[in-house]
């Protein structure tokens, strides 16, 4: 693996302090792609009924067909769920990356700033009132999740920004208030829900449980996430410029309003895809971009593919743990991540207090 050590100032004494060991992005992408393959295989093999990777390989190469039972478990239970957790992880990491750049703040996580809450609220309206509707093949639930997330982000953004700066306290409080409001409003949806199916969906959404989606659902989600990622690609350089501040970006020729709206829309689409598959999962969108930034530096162009891959790996591993750690019972993956992510969030908050506040 190519590791480039940036040589720094001419005076050797200073080198030790400012030396940055940063990986080459291409090497990291190759490494992560391999790791994603391995993780997928391990996740498929692990579970109540263990199916060894060798068996899976043998079946793939056609040496030895799977038993009916193994086939059922692999293709109807595990594979959809493993793929779903990958999509959820990518979506959260990517939207985290986008929102962190937009807010110029490393603590902007889609859950913490209320984007996930907005998506849940939209989805609830969809499930309760428009469950039969669809527009261009997208269910009303999915569209409303997207709309809910985008509207929340626009609101939080306008609340937390003043004079071209993000106020961290306002950002956190606005996100917090909106999350509480929306998650608790789910109570009303229970009142309207006659069949009780929406109820169960809702309960698992609030804790962040990755369900077993249908193949159509998976396909649509994957297509939407891929679309959002491709759309985000040309905006990554703009995000680098926006990090200098709105005024700076403006005087460098960026149409700031336009860029901002695009980033909010694309980030919200990513959040909506994640939420519709896995519900409210906190801090994944915080941890993954942060670690990626430590390895690669803050250039968003490089971070985009790495965040997508690393997010998928992170959530696949977390969900596999969530399924197996207390087997035969299952912990919601959102709960599991909260226990790791919470302290991490507090650490970031503390670090931030020392360096650059507000």
């Amino acid at each position: 693996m190519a590791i480039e050590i940036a040589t720094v100032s001419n005076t050797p004494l200073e080198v030790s302090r400012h030396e940055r060991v940063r990986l080459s992005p291409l090497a990291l992408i190759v490494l992560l792609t391999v790791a994603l393959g391995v993780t997928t295989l391990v996740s498929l093999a692990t579970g109540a009924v263990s199916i060894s990777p060798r068996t899976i390989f043998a079946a793939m190469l056609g040496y030895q067909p799977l038993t009916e039972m193994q086939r059922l478990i692999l293709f109807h239970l595990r594979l959809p769920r493993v793929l779903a957790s990958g999509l959820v992880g990518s979506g959260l990491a990517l939207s985290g990356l986008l929102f962190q750049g937009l807010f110029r703040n490393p603590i902007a996580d889609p859950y913490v700033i209320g984007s996930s809450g907005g998506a849940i609220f939209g989805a609830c309206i969809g499930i309760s009132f428009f469950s039969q509707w669809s527009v261009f093949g997208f269910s009303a639930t999915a569209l409303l999740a997207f709309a809910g997330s985008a509207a929340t982000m626009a609101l939080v953004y306008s609340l937390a920004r003043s004079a071209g700066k993000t106020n961290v306290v306002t950002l956190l409080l606005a996100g917090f208030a909106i999350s509480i409001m929306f998650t608790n409003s789910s109570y009303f949806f229970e009142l309207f829900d006659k069949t009780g199916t929406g109820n169960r969906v809702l309960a698992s959404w609030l804790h962040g449980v990755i369900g077993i989606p249908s193949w159509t659902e998976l396909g649509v989600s994957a297509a939407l996430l891929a679309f959002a990622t491709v759309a985000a690609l040309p905006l990554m350089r703009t995000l680098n410029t926006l990090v200098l501040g709105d005024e700076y970006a403006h005087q460098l020729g960026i149409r700031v309003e336009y860029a901002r709206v695009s980033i909010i829309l694309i980030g919200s689409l990513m959040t909506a895809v994640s939420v519709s598959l896995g519900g409210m999962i906190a801090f994944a969108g915080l941890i993954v971009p942060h670690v990626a930034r430590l390895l690669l530096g803050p250039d968003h162009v490089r971070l985009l593919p790495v965040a997508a891959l690393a997010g998928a790996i992170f959530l696949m591993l977390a969900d596999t743990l969530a399924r197996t750690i207390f087997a035969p019972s299952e912990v919601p993956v959102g709960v599991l991540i909260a226990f790791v992510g919470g302290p991490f969030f507090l650490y970031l908050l503390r670090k931030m207090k020392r360096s650059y506040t507000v």
Partner: protein
Amino acid sequence: MSCLLRMEGVHFDYHGQKVLRQATFDLEEGSCSALIGLNGSGKTTLLRIAAGVLRPAVGAVRLLGRPLEAIPLKEVARTVALVPQQLELPFDFTVQQVVEQGRTPYIGMLRGPGRSDRLAVDRALDLADVSSLRHRVFNELSGGEKQRVKIALGLAQKPRLLLLDEPTQNLDIGRQVELIDLLHFLRAEGITILASIHDLHLVDKNFSTVLLLSPGQPLAIGTPEQMLKPSILERAFQCPPDRHPLLIERAELYRREAR
């Protein structure tokens, strides 16, 4: 010499407060002008208007004869660069990554930076004498180093007009001199300069023109000798003539010359 930037009767109010009144002036191509005035007299505002970041409530700004607001943002950014007082970064960008942002007006949405962009960044780093810092993290630099990197970022835009907001603020006298030398050097390279300067000692020998802002008064413009008269400074800075060493010193100077 041709006129690069012209302001005509520019007014600007900030939250109902009158900041700029009747700002009218021409900036000749190749000139090096200092913008002086009381705190809050609108120096920063004037620079932001000149860069197109703010739009004046009344009056016109012309860049190379064309109304500023009619010129596409990217084209303005290739002609005028503003070096602001503050640059705070939330992430650990290196100096090189910061200076590369100066190429934004030259890079399309889909195309990445090319050879000419890399050359321009190298040249900007060289001109501002920060090549040796290129892999350092911006946030870890000293005040003087940050100031130079901000100037390099502006130079990467390949501007004809460089606007600097208090470039000597918070610098020790040694770094102030280095910075003034850099401005002289850039002027020799053909870049027109307008810098707001807090320390009037630096203005006298180093600038060809002085723009003076007084609160609520029209902007005054002249040579350093004309504008740095004690009688003018006294009024503009609302400072008693016998209290500040600078005014006493200037009064002494003019007395001697009169004799």
